[in-house]
């Protein structure tokens, strides 16, 4: 079943010494989750192979490279951008990115005057088909609490400094609508292929806590 619960504490360092003498909160959680899986399998509610399939899907097949393809296509193809503006769900589905937590998509275009940033203050709503599962910080209280009240302070923590005159627009995902930020296309990328353009698109640039990469710093 792929169980290997070598989890001790909040850090990501590995401690190889005697597991039995450690009772951190997280290892208790690991035991609780393991007991739960045993129970659900025994009761016939869960097939462990289906769990493996779910994990593999989100570890290897669904992630921010999907969204980067959407953004690169929008940068390269004005008709596609227009479609994204009118019906983002259909335009994104056209690239094969559909389903759970992406059923109702809206694309938000950043411009020289407008910067969009997405949050879910109430839980962790995030556009899975295009960005995969959210990073820990997106789901955690520091971001969820301040993204709406102090977006410029939050952006500075991410190294993004915007002029006072830029309109910062925060989108709190309180329903089943999911937002994808289309970052500004960097200057100096005329004639780039969609594939090369996609390499400039970071996950954070599609949440709105980052910008697209500087083309001078990316290998083509």
């Amino acid at each position, binding site marked *: 079943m792929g*169980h290997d*619960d070598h*989890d001790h504490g909040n850090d990501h360092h590995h401690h190889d010494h005697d597991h039995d003498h450690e009772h951190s909160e*997280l290892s208790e*959680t690991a035991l*609780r*989750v*393991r*007991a*739960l899986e*045993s*129970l*659900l399998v*025994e*009761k*016939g*509610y*869960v*097939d462990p*192979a*289906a*769990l493996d*399939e*779910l994990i593999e*899907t989100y*570890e290897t097949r669904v*992630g921010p490279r999907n969204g980067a393809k959407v953004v690169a296509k929008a940068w390269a193809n004005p008709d596609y951008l227009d479609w994204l503006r009118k019906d983002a769900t259909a335009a994104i589905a056209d690239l094969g990115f559909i*389903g759970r937590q992406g*059923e*109702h998509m*809206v694309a938000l275009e950043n411009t020289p005057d407008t910067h969009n940033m997405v949050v879910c203050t*109430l*839980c962790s709503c995030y556009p899975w088909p295009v960005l*995969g599962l959210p*990073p*820990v910080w997106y789901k*955690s*209280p*520091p*971001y*969820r*609490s*301040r993204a*709406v*009240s102090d*977006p*410029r302070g939050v952006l500075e*923590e*991410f190294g993004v400094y915007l002029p006072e005159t*830029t*309109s*910062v*627009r*925060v*989108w*709190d995902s*309180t*329903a*089943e609508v999911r937002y994808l930020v289309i970052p500004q296309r960097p200057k100096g990328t005329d004639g780039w292929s969609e594939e090369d353009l996609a390499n400039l698109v970071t996950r*954070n640039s599609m949440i709105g806590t980052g910008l697209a990469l500087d083309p001078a710093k990316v290998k083509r």
Partner: protein
Amino acid sequence: MNGAQDLGGQHGFGPIDHDEDKEPVFHHEWEKRAFAMTLAMGFLGQWNIDKSRHARESMPPAKYLSSSYYQIWTEGLIRLMLDAGLVVPGEVHIGHKEVTPRDLHREPVHAHEVAGFLSRGGPANRDIADKPRFAIGDRVTAIRMNPTHHTRLPRYLRGCPGEIVLHHGGHVFPDTNAHGLGENPQHLYTVRFAARDVWGDQANPNDFVHADLWESYLAAA
């Protein structure tokens, strides 16, 4: 409910820990299993997404804020299964069956079915006969309310004036759907609030915050 989940505008949680290098999708093996069990059990159709969210946010605030994300999911899943009569507390504790499983009239979701469940997703839009009360450009006010039940109108927006910027048609109403009281779809709108109307003069006059709000959360301004 005014639970710990309603975080918008709170202070004191410290800096955002965002610079982990090559952040993995999951940080512990148990997180993978907790995530996958939550989805696989959800596929069985014994509850809905609103009920799931309510199960998580019903955790006592001190516990919610001191738990990791997938710990919250795990406890939420256990609560849903207890409520649905799929498990009893003793079983959860020992990890073995003590009572005969409730017959769900289907097998567990198998690996070959996963892709289908994920690509179907769970669309929340519904056709409704009611005409929308608001149009794009209308001025509205988010109502003041403090329900003890599930709601998706965050506290920081209650009482604030805003403007309708998008209309999404009918969507399942979480406040009833979370409690087994029906989908009762309502028109859903994206409402734009001037940051100064929400936070006062300390906000930049060029800034806005938006939320997706159901018609009954809104009054004409």
